[in-house]
């Protein structure tokens, strides 16, 4: 599938707001890329264990959407989640520390790469079972309206996840609830063309994935996911609508994963070097850089500084992660249940959650 088969909206002048946001998010995207490169290296050095899935190539998708929501909005994604956390304001050090399995990590070292959480910033995780987070995000969106807030929920998911019942069942719920204004969610399909080694053509009987949402009465569209500015424009429009109506919406963003599926996917027998090279010629960071330069808003000097800042931040993140202590041994038994024994015994105390009774 050629990502350019979807027409990119023609470049037009950037508004002042857009310009500011684009400069800010250019920096964030460079940081995320640099972070992922480093994470892969730390994985090879044995500092990071388990699975490691980097986001390189797809930055414009999360950046475009996360730049368009409010601070109290929330989102869910799968295991390819480092950039999402960083974009939303998590300290790179806390993210790296999580990958290193340290006590200072975003999830105290208990979740690892696949289970980043930063609830203070509205990031509700980080999930390893493909599709398994989609029902959660859908119910979370319902809760936001139930609580009579204006908050909305974003749910990022992969092209591969679209073939799972874990996608279909909640999508139908979102369609039903959304009609009643009770499900302010945007499903963002990050179609990076592959689920591990399986291209979309071999996993989905119909490759227009956005269209699947029509069958649940969820309005949807398909767009290029490589141009931050266009994604952000789309996101602002969609988010506004979802916030106003309480209805669900879906976008399929065509993008590409530059690296292997995970750090263990070395040979990539399912795609050619040429294909990767061609995709890399539309690097979302370069595209944004070019647009900013064309708008006269970015100089060589600034680019250099952004890269240097990213370099410094990532070096600092690694240092922080390295120097952080591992979780205390007793953490093994914590966070399984919230109640302490006494509470369990009496059973009557309200061990209240986030709401009030």
């Amino acid at each position, binding site marked *: 599938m050629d990502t350019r088969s979807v027409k990119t909206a023609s470049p037009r002048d950037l508004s002042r707001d857009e310009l500011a946001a684009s400069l800010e998010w250019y920096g964030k995207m460079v940081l995320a890329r640099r972070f992922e490169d480093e994470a892969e290296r730390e994985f090879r050095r044995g500092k990071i264990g388990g699975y490691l899935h980097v986001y390189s190539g797809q930055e414009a998708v999360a950046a475009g959407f996360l730049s368009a929501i409010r601070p109290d909005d*929330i989102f*869910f994604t799968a295991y390819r989640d480092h950039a999402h956390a960083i974009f939303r304001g998590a300290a790179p050090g806390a993210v790296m520390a999580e990958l290193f399995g340290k006590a200072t*990590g*975003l*999830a*105290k*070292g*208990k*979740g690892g790469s696949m*289970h980043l*959480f*930063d*609830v203070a910033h509205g990031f*509700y*995780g*980080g*999930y390893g*079972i493909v599709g*398994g*987070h*989609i*029902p*959660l*995000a*859908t*119910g*979370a*969106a*319902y*809760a*936001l309206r*139930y*609580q009579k807030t204006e908050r909305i929920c974003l749910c990022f998911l992969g092209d591969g996840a679209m073939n799972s*019942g*874990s996608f*279909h*069942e*909640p999508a*139908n*719920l979102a369609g*039903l609830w959304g009609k009643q204004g*009770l499900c302010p969610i945007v499903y963002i399909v990050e179609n990076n063309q592959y689920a591990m080694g399986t291209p979309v053509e071999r996993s989905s009987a119909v490759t227009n994935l956005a269209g699947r949402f029509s069958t649940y009465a969820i309005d949807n569209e398909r767009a290029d996911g490589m141009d931050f500015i266009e994604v952000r424009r789309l996101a602002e429009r969609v988010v506004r609508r979802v916030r106003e109506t309480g209805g669900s919406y879906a976008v399929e963003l065509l993008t590409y994963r530059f690296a292997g599926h995970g750090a263990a996917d070395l040979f990539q027998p399912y795609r050619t070097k040429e294909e990767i090279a061609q995709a890399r010629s539309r690097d979302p960071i370069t595209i944004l850089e070019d647009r900013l330069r064309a708008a006269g808003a970015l100089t060589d000097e600034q680019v250099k500084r952004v890269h240097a800042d990213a370099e410094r931040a990532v070096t600092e993140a690694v240092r922080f992660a390295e120097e952080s202590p591992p979780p205390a041994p007793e953490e093994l038994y*914590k*966070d*399984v*249940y*919230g*109640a302490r024994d006494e509470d*369990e*015994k*009496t*059973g*009557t*105390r*309200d*061990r209240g*959650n*986030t*709401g009030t*009774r």
Partner: protein
Amino acid sequence: MAELTYRDALRSALIEEMDHDRRVVLIGEDIGVYQGTFRVTADLLKRYGPGRVIDTPISELGFVGAAIGMAMLGLRPVVEVMTWNFSLLAMDQIVNNAAKLRYFSGGQVNVPMVIRGPNGAGVQLSAQHSQSLEATYAHFPGLYVVAPATPAEAKGLLRTAIRSDDPVIFLENAALYGMKGEVPDSDFALPFGKAAVARSGRDVTVVAYSRMVFAALTAAEQLAAEGIEAEVINMRCLRPLDAATIVESVSRTHRAVVVQEQWKPFGAAAEIAMRIYEDAFDQLDAPVERVTGADVPMPYARTLEVRAVPHEADIVAAVKKTLGKD
């Protein structure tokens, strides 16, 4: 004290919690307009409206998962599964999300939700609709697993379940819905992880839960007629498991029989019996006996079905075996 059916006891727990706490919502198939397959949610749609009593399509994975998401955002959903058999479709959501979210988020989120519905065999519901899944769920840390036997327990444990900050597998039983019993009126709740002595006795300890408690009590009556005094322990809760109450009893009776409805291999009775061995080995005068269902998918024919589930007579025989009287 009021006399209520098990069904109404459950329903009154729902009403009281919903009246007090707007975070409590109900979600499930045909719980609203249809009034609930077993009528536990009868009239609640009218009372609380469709935003709080949410009828769903047939999509167990979807709505159980959605309820988890609601719980993560601070609601307290009570999910009805029409029967626990269908929960297998939502197993991934239950054990990979609900049970583990608190842990892998490093304590940033928790999942205060209840999943409830009838567990175990009914009458001639065949192989796919007759499963008793307590051992399956009780294996997973992060879940509470509760199995009330009486109306009072149904109410008291459901209230605790709704107030719990962590997910609760709440196992009801279709045969018990119509059973009546005294239920305290006040702000009454029963703790998790605390078994009850349903009948005192000195000769043998019979451990059971849910419907099998009544089989055990009947067996105890029959045994009493023969001069054998069985102590019957009603577990109420399988995770956490109240080993202390059992061990205390066994340290007086020196004999134990554990009853479960389901297949013997890798069933709940194995764990309960092991806890006895681990904590009271020296107290035992005979091996612990297990009384269980037949190790076969449930047959439809009533003549076979009655042979597939444990009966009073099986408990009586097991007790006698522990006493060397077989």
